[in-house]
C-alpha cells in the first residue's frame, strides 16, 4: 500500500517536473512573441489607417480649395457687371456643372446688404435676402469662405463657398452652392473593412456629412472636446488644444489624434484630423475586432496550437513518467527478490558453517563408539562369553556405545532443529526460549574456546511475532560473531533480555577485541567481512539487520576496541501479553 503511494507520487513528481520544464519556456516564449507581435501589428494597423485617413483629409481639403479657387478665378476674371448679368452667370454655371458633373448647384452675387442681386440655378432664389444668414455674416468678414453644412432657404443640406470682392465703397460676394451629396461621397468613400467609416463634424458638434456608421453615443461629446488651433510651426498644420482622455497625438507630418474608445462592450479605433483650418474634424471610426481581425485570427490559431502543444506535453509527461515508473517498479521488485535470495543464500551458508562445526563435535563420540565396537570385536575373537571374565566388560562396552549414541542423537537433534526449512509464517514466540535453544547449540564450542556464557533472561518478557527460524538465525549469527571476536583467548558472553517501552530488548555482549571505527560504518553491509578468506561470508550481520528490520525492530551496536562489543536488538511485542509458550 505504501509502495503504491510512493510510485504514484513518483509518477506525479516526474510528470510535474517534465511539464514545468517543457511548458514554462514554451508559454514564456509564446507570451513574449505574442505581446511584441500584437503591439507591432496594432501600431502598423493604426499607422496604415492613419495614412488612409490622411489621404482623405488631403482630398477633402483639396476639394474645398479647388472649389473655392474656381469661384475665385470667376470673381477675379469678370467684372461685377458681367457677373450680375444672369445669362452670363447661367452660362458660367453650365460650364462649371459640365466640368464638375453637378457639384456646383448654383451661383449668385450677394451685395453688402445681403440681397442676392443675381442668381443662376434651378431654385428661383433671385432677390433672396441673406442678411440674417449666419454664413453671410461670416463670409463678409473673410475674403474666402467655406460655410458649414446647413439647410438654409432650400431646406436641403448644402454648403456655400464664397469670395468677397471690393470695388470702391461697395463689397459684394460671389457665392456658389456645393452639392452635399457630391461632397458627402468623398467622405463615404473612406470605408475600410466591415465597420471602418468616416464623418465630418464642425466645432459645434454638427455633422457635416451623413454619418456612414452608427456613431457611438459618446462620439459627439468626444468630438466636441476636440478643438484645433492654428499654432503649429509648419504652415497648414494644427495643434489640438484639447483632446479626449486616452487619445494621443500622432506626429507624422500633419497632425492627428488617435485612440481606442470602449463602448457597449466593444472597442473602437478613432482617428481625428482637422479639416478646413481646424473648423471641422474628420473622424474615422472602426471596430477593433474588425481592424485587428487578422491579428485576432492569428492569435486564435496560435492559442489553439499552444493549447494543443500543452495538452500533448501533459499527456506525454504522464505517459512517459508512468512508463518509467513501471520500469523502476519492476527493477525494485527484482531487487527485492534478489535480496530475498541473498538472505536465503546467507542462511544456507550459516547453516553449512554450523553443520560443519557440529560434525566436528560429533567426531569424538562417534570415534569412541567405533573403538568400543572394535573392542567388542576383539573380545569376541576369544568367544567364551557367558562364563568369561570378559562378560562384565561386554556389558560396560555396550553401555558405553549406548551413552555415546545418545550424545550423537542430542547433537544431531539440535542441528536438525536449526536446519529446518525457513517457515515464512510468523508465530508468537517467546524470545527467551529461542535464546536458550541456541545457547544449547553453542555449549560445546564455547567450552573449547574457553568462553563462559551468562544469560539473564526476563521471565516476564511478552511474546514477539516472528518466524522462529529467522529469529534463531539472528541469534546464531550474533553469538557466532561474539565467539569469533573473543578468539581462543576466551572471555565472557552475556545475553540479557528485558522489556523496555513496549519493546523486547535483547543484548548480546562479548569481551572480544571490539570493532574499530573504520569498520563500524560497514558492518551491516552484505559481503563485508573481516574474517579470513573461507571463514566468513560477510552475510551474517546483513542478514540479521534485514530480519530485524522486517520484524519492525532495530539492531544497534556499541563497541570499544579491546573491551568488547554489545549488539542490541529491539523487537515490538504484543502489548499486555505476558504468557509463555512451550518451545
Amino acid at each position: 500500500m505504501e509502495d503504491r503511494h510512493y510510485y504514484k507520487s513518483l509518477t506525479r513528481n516526474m510528470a510535474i517536473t517534465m511539464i514545468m520544464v517543457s511548458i514554462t519556456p514554451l508559454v514564456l516564449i509564446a507570451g513574449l512573441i505574442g505581446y511584441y507581435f500584437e503591439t507591432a501589428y496594432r501600431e502598423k494597423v493604426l499607422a496604415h489607417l492613419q495614412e488612409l485617413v490622411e489621404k482623405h483629409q488631403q482630398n477633402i481639403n483639396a476639394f474645398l480649395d479647388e472649389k473655392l479657387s474656381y469661384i475665385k478665378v470667376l470673381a477675379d476674371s469678370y467684372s461685377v457687371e458681367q457677373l450680375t448679368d444672369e445669362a452670363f452667370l447661367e452660362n458660367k454655371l453650365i460650364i462649371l456643372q459640365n466640368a464638375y458633373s453637378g457639384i456646383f448647384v448654383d451661383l449668385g452675387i450677394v451685395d453688402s446688404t445681403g440681397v442676392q442681386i443675381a442668381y443662376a440655378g434651378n431654385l428661383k432664389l433671385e432677390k433672396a435676402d441673406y442678411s440674417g444668414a449666419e454664413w453671410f455674416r461670416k463670409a463678409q468678414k473673410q475674403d474666402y469662405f467655406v460655410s458649414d453644412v446647413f439647410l438654409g432657404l432650400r431646406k436641403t443640406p448644402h454648403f456655400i463657398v464664397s469670395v468677397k470682392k471690393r470695388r470702391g465703397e461697395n463689397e459684394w460676394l460671389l457665392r456658389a452652392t456645393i452639392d452635399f451629396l457630391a461632397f458627402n461621397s468623398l467622405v463615404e468613400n473612406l470605408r475600410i473593412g466591415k465597420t471602418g467609416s468616416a464623418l465630418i463634424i464642425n466645432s459645434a458638434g454638427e455633422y457635416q456629412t451623413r454619418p456612414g456608421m452608427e456613431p457611438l453615443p459618446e462620439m459627439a461629446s468626444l468630438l466636441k472636446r476636440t478643438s484645433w488651433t492654428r499654432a503649429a510651426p509648419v504652415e497648414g498644420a494644427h495643434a489640438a488644444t484639447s483632446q479626449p482622455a486616452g487619445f494621443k497625438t500622432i506626429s507624422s507630418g500633419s497632425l492627428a489624434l488617435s485612440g481606442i474608445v470602449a463602448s457597449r462592450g466593444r472597442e473602437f479605433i478613432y482617428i481625428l484630423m482637422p479639416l478646413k483650418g481646424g473648423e471641422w474634424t474628420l473622424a474615422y471610426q472602426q471596430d477593433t475586432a474588425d481592424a485587428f481581425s487578422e491579428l485576432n485570427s492569428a492569435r486564435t490559431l496560435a492559442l489553439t496550437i499552444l493549447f494543443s502543444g500543452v495538452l500533448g506535453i501533459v499527456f506525454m509527461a504522464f505517459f512517459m513518467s508512468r512508463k518509467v515508473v513501471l520500469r523502476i517498479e519492476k527493477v525494485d521488485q527484482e531487487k527485492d527478490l534478489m535480496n530475498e535470495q541473498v538472505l536465503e543464500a546467507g542462511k544456507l551458508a550459516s547453516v553449512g558453517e554450523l553443520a560443519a562445526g557440529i560434525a566436528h563435535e560429533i567426531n569424538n563420540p562417534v570415534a569412541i563408539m567405533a573403538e568400543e565396537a572394535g573392542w567388542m570385536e576383539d573380545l569376541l575373537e576369544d568367544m567364551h562369553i557367558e562364563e568369561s571374565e570378559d562378560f562384565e566388560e561386554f556389558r560396560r562396552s555396550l553401555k558405553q556405545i549406548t551413552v555415546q549414541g545418545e550424545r550423537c542423537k542430542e547433537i544431531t537433534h539440535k542441528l536438525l532443529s536449526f536446519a529446518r526449512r525457513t517457515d515464512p509464517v510468523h508465530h508468537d514466540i517467546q524470545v527467551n526460549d529461542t535464546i536458550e535453544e541456541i545457547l544449547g547449540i553453542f555449549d560445546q564450542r564455547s567450552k573449547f574456546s574457553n568462553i563462559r556464557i551468562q544469560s539473564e533472561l526476563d521471565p516476564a518478557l511478552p511474546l514477539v511475532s516472528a518466524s522462529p527460524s529467522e529469529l534463531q538465525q539472528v541469534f546464531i549469527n550474533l553469538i557466532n560473531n561474539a565467539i569469533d571476536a573473543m578468539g581462543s583467548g576466551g572471555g565472557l558472553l552475556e545475553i540479557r533480555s528485558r522489556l523496555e517501552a513496549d519493546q523486547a530488548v535483547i543484548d548480546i555482549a562479548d569481551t572480544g577485541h571490539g570493532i574499530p571505527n573504520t569498520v563500524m560504518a560497514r558492518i551491516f553491509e552484505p559481503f563485508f567481512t573481516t574474517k579470513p578468506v573461507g571463514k566468513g561470508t560477510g552475510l551474517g550481520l546483513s542478514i540479521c539487520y534485514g530480519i530485524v528490520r522486517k520484524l519492525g525492530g532495530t539492531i544497534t551496536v556499541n563497541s570499544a576496541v579491546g573491551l568488547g562489543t554489545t549488539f542490541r536488538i529491539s523487537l515490538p511485542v504484543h502489548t499486555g501479553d505476558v504468557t509463555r509458550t512451550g518451545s
Partner: protein
Amino acid sequence: MNEEKAIKILLVDDEEGYVSVLAKRLIRRNFVVKTALSGSEAVRILRNETFDVAVLDLKMEDMDGLEVLKVFKAMEPRMPVIFLTGQGSETDAREGIELGACDYLVKPCNLSELIERITAARKRC
C-alpha cells in the same frame, strides 16, 4: 611384529572414553601404551619416559595440539608425532605437519590404519 620389540606409544586425547578403549585395543595388539588426558599431563609423562611414537589429538581443552607438538619437539625431537583430527580441521593438521608432525589421521579412523601409520612413522620419521 612379534619378533620386534614392542612399540611404545604415548596416546594423548582429552576424551577419556576414547583414549581408554583405544589403549586397550592397541595393548591387545602388543603395543605398550601410556595415555594422557591433557597436553600438560602428556608433557609430564614425557619428562620421565621415552616413547617410540606419540599420537596426539589436535583439539584439547587446556593446550592446543599444536602447542603440545612444539613442546614435544623441544623435549624429544626424534619422536615421531601423529595427529588425530576431527573432520573439517585438516587445515590445522597440515599446519602440524609443517611444524614437524609425521602424519595425521581423521577421526573416526580404522584401527588397522592407525597401526599401519604408527609402524610406518617409526621407520620413516
